[in-house]
């Protein structure tokens, strides 16, 4: 390759094996922006990499280089693989900060509205189909209850026990200093019943079942199974979502009750073996302190958490786009959103009951 008087002379093979070195020499040339002619007289072979190189020479030159002396075969290959400058400039226009902000706002409000529609749909069909199993698979609520509830008993039980243990151990050291050992029962009891039991259970369920709902629905959407249901005139919400919603509504309070009990039991072990309290004193103090209202608050929260987890899981499942990558994205988003929603909801409940 040589450049003389604004003409680039190319020779030999212009193929993927040779183009790299020719391109390097071209880039280092100071005259590359002023090329007026491309002489191909001595070019014996060209492939798409060679044509791409010629296109780059044309694009980078401030002038309009002409191809010269190309053989008919070379010309034909160039015609096949060459792309014009104008065709490449289909890049998206840059948007400014306010346009981006506006776009984000409208897309968020659209997402929120579609989320509300989905929520309404789920509540409507769940209530509608509460006492009829005509529109869902036989045994689907029991199957979902096993997946959501029974299969989660081990992990939720273990974590709640450990949580109760940590809570009791951390507070007992402080209570001991002021001789208020007996209040360990009040502290562990109120924490587990009103906050830790429902919230920890909800977080674990969001991670387990919420992500499973999203991935199930997303897979079905990608593989066009949801469309197939619709073509058979089956409402996917009634067929797939209602059993999950009802099973979750049943299982969550039960899981929370178990988690609360195990947390309190762990606290009792610390009270008996570390603070040397009697088990009876621990239980009596707890029953004297806890009220029915505390129980209702804990359990009612758990039902709301259950609904939020189902709705968010299903929502992201329906929102999936793309292939494996989109699938991973919605599952991650679903878990993050569920956990976030559970914590925010818990804070709102705390605020509400304080007032």
């Amino acid at each position, binding site marked *: 390759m040589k450049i003389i008087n604004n003409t680039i002379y190319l020779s030999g093979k212009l193929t*993927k094996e040779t183009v790299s070195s020719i391109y390097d020499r071209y880039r280092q040339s100071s005259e590359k922006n002023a090329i007026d002619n491309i002489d191909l007289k001595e070019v014996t072979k060209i*492939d798409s990499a060679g044509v791409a190189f010629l296109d780059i020479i044309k694009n980078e030159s401030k002038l309009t280089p002409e191809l010269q002396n190309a053989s008919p075969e070379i010309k034909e290959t160039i015609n096949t693989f*060459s792309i014009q400058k104008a065709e490449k400039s289909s890049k998206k226009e840059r948007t400014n900060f306010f346009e981006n902000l506006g776009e984000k706002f409208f897309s968020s409000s659209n997402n929120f509205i579609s989320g509300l529609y989905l929520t309404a749909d789920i509540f409507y069909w769940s209530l509608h189909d509460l006492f009829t199993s005509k529109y869902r698979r036989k045994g689907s609520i029991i199957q979902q209850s096993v997946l959501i509830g029974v299969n989660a008993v081990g992990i939720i039980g273990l974590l709640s026990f450990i949580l109760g243990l940590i809570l009791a151990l951390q507070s007992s050291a402080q209570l001991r200093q002021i001789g208020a050992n007996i209040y360990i029962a009040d502290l562990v009891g109120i924490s587990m019943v009103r906050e830790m039991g429902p919230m920890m259970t909800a977080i674990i369920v969001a991670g387990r079942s919420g992500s499973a709902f999203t991935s199930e629905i997303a897979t079905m959407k990608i593989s066009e199974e949801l469309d197939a249901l619709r073509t058979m005139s089956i409402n996917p919400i009634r067929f797939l979502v209602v059993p999950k919603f009802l099973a979750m509504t049943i299982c969550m309070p039960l899981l929370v009750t178990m988690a609360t009990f195990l947390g309190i039991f762990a606290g009792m072990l610390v009270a008996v073996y570390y603070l040397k309290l009697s088990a009876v004193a621990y239980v009596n103090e707890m029953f004297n302190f806890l009220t029915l209202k505390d129980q209702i608050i804990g359990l009612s929260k758990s039902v709301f958490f259950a609904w939020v987890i189902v709705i968010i899981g299903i929502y992201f499942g329906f929102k999936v786009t793309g292939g494996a990558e989109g699938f991973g994205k919605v599952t991650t988003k679903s878990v993050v959103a569920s956990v976030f929603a559970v914590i925010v909801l818990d804070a709102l409940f705390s605020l509400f009951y304080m007032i």
Partner: protein
Amino acid sequence: MESIIEINDLEVKYGDFTVLEDINLNIPEGQITAILGGSGCGKTTLLKSLLRLQPIAQGSIRIFQTAVDSPEFRSQLTKIGMVFQNGALLNSLSVADNISIPLKQHTALPDKIINQIIDAKLKLVNLEDTGSLLPSELSGGMKKRAAVARAIALDPELLFCDEPSAGLDPITSASLDNLLVKLKQQLEMTIVIVTHELASVRRIADNIVFLHDGRILFQGSYEQIQHSNIDEIKQFFSSN
């Protein structure tokens, strides 16, 4: 004319079931060879055997004078492109990234030239402005064309296409046929296609191999096969 693919006494089995038997075939260089035959006759299996995607029970296959089961064949794969029946694009990568895979893996070309090649190959298959899309955002026909663009990214000497025009509308199918002819003429590419589409075969094939029940019944030109007296071939042509 030299043979680019030489197949001798090939036999392929799925368990105890023999799919291909007694296959002796030489595929000439620089031509388009169409492998025809009814469903289940072993066309795709033959194509997969050629690329070592399907183990062979007996016989030998040599491509570019190299046995496909020899370690040296690996280096020859850069000279071969394959268009799978369903496209087989990597779903997590954009169309442009899919096409860039062979270019980045097997050449030292600068990114600028690679991007230019990608744009050119997409234009060639009429898929301009789809480089940033994911395969799941393409229609079936677009996926197939993107797969063609990926297969020809390295301007291979040998291109295999498994049912390239199946499921495409007649206009797209004809433009894909034209592209294959162009590739043959301009890059001296040897092309082997497996197909059912007689219209496409008539337009582009120089050489036809007819398979039936895992055996070769006929090898020759389109004119010759049309006048064949073999019952299975007559039946195939009359029902198409």
